[in-house]
């Protein structure tokens, strides 16, 4: 079984990082993983996306046109990628910044005001972690405990960030239940 998760949003929203934390956690759970960034001529404020492939077998093609799941942090990302998500996948919509929906009834749509939740926690930059936690909770793609562990390792050495991101993970989890 292979799953692919597309993370997409503005440059600066921590898109690549949330993908990396998921890939790391999936690796810890014993899966094969690949993390593929968008690396065209990008700039801050432009669109950024990355794809995380999680599989129980060696991963062949890292090029995936139809990912199973999508975490959309801004409107252009949802408009671009929601139509190509495989039937049955989870589509997380950051409803703080995205006023529209997918208009698809064959996917599991999850509305999470990730940016607002992060603002309430005191730092808007944690929105990516809120969304990641909500996505993992809903999709059950990996164990939530491993997500916590890999986020801690990612922010190792910075207690302030660990504290903030642990709160973000909890808040995201709650938002998805």
């Amino acid at each position, binding site marked *: 079984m292979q799953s692919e998760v597309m993370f997409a949003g503005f440059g600066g929203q921590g898109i690549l990082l949330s993908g990396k934390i998921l890939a790391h956690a999936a690796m810890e759970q014993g899966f*094969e993983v690949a993390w593929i960034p968008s*690396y065209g001529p990008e700039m801050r404020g432009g669109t950024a996306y990355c794809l995380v492939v999680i599989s129980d077998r060696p991963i*062949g*093609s*890292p090029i995936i046109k139809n990912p199973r799941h999508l975490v959309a942090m801004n409107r252009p990302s949802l408009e671009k990628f929601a139509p190509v998500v495989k039937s049955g996948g989870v589509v997380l919509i950051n409803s703080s910044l995205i006023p529209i929906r997918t208009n698809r009834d064959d996917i599991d749509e999850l509305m999470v005001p990730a940016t607002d939740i992060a603002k309430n926690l005191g730092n808007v930059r944690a929105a990516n972690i809120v969304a990641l936690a909500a996505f993992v909770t809903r999709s059950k793609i990996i164990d939530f405990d491993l997500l916590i562990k890999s986020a801690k390792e990612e922010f190792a050495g910075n207690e302030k960030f660990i504290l903030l991101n642990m709160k973000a993970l909890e808040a995201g989890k709650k938002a998805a239940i």
Partner: protein
Amino acid sequence: MGKILMKGNEAIGEAAIRAGCLNYFAYPITPQSEVSEYLSRRLPEIRGVFLQAESEVAVSYMIFGAAGCGERIFTTSSSPGISLMSEGLSYIASAQLPAVFVNIMRGGPGLGGILPSQGDYFQATKGGGHGDYRLFVMAPSSVQEAVEMVMKAFPLAEKYRNPVMILGDGLIGQMMEPIEFPENLRSEPTNKDQWATNGMATRNSDKPNIVKSLFLDPDELNDHNLLLKAKYERMKREDTKYEPYNLDADYKVLIVSYGTMSRVCRTAIDNMKAEGFEVGMIRPQTLFPFPEKAISDAASKQSCEVVACIEMSMGQMVEDVQRCVLGKRPVKWYGKCGGDVPTPEEVIYVVKSFLDKNKA
């Protein structure tokens, strides 16, 4: 030690250190600048030498010098940068010095683009620089394989006293995958006395070593070229590597593909197998020496009707495949080189159409 998640470019830098190389001279270029970024931090920590040169031409001659002194040395670059280094590569090959070059290919020609490509196949395997020289060329298809090839490259460069090139593409450099650094691939130079000009007092030999590539006497130059040729023939005999895939099946089509493109083909082959359509593949892991016999043998299998060379270029490796198949089967080509990597679906479509056209 467990596996760690690492970006291809960073893993390549770390692999060189783990192999025992503490010298890196380079000039940054997308999509491999993270190697320099990583090593600029990492090498000073372990008393290695990180040096950003003023240009790629300068890099190649700094490597020439360091290798002549008996130091393990490597550099990384991407397509346009490798073009600039090609003059130095010719001199290093002629002077029979070991060094490791990594090319994380991007689209060309000219400045081209920054996305993945395999357009430097000819440059890597047929020359780039002038004269009758060859590079030992390895092509990884995963981050783990890139790590292992970098670690093996140093002893291979020393075995043949010849530059080794790792030919990856932008995706191998940018992708993160779980990796480990095999302890058994750590090595030390064993034949330094044959070529290092590091002072007579340092070695067990009375023969002075001379680093040079100028041979004005025609007989002497011819002999020198015969000596180089003998080394290239030895590479073919002793170190040709490839991975067979689904060759036990009665395949109708044989794919030849390398690097990132071969992973896409692997998925396509698995999907076709699931619908009862058998396709085999040979994935060259060394591009020079090329797995000539393996391809010839696999193409000769009775069930095989067509050979398909699939690469991210406008048709370069296909010339080598034709050379191996020798007209025994039709050899077709498919490729792209704008930066888009063909999808498994695309590969399935072209493979089937090759077979249909062959029957028509």
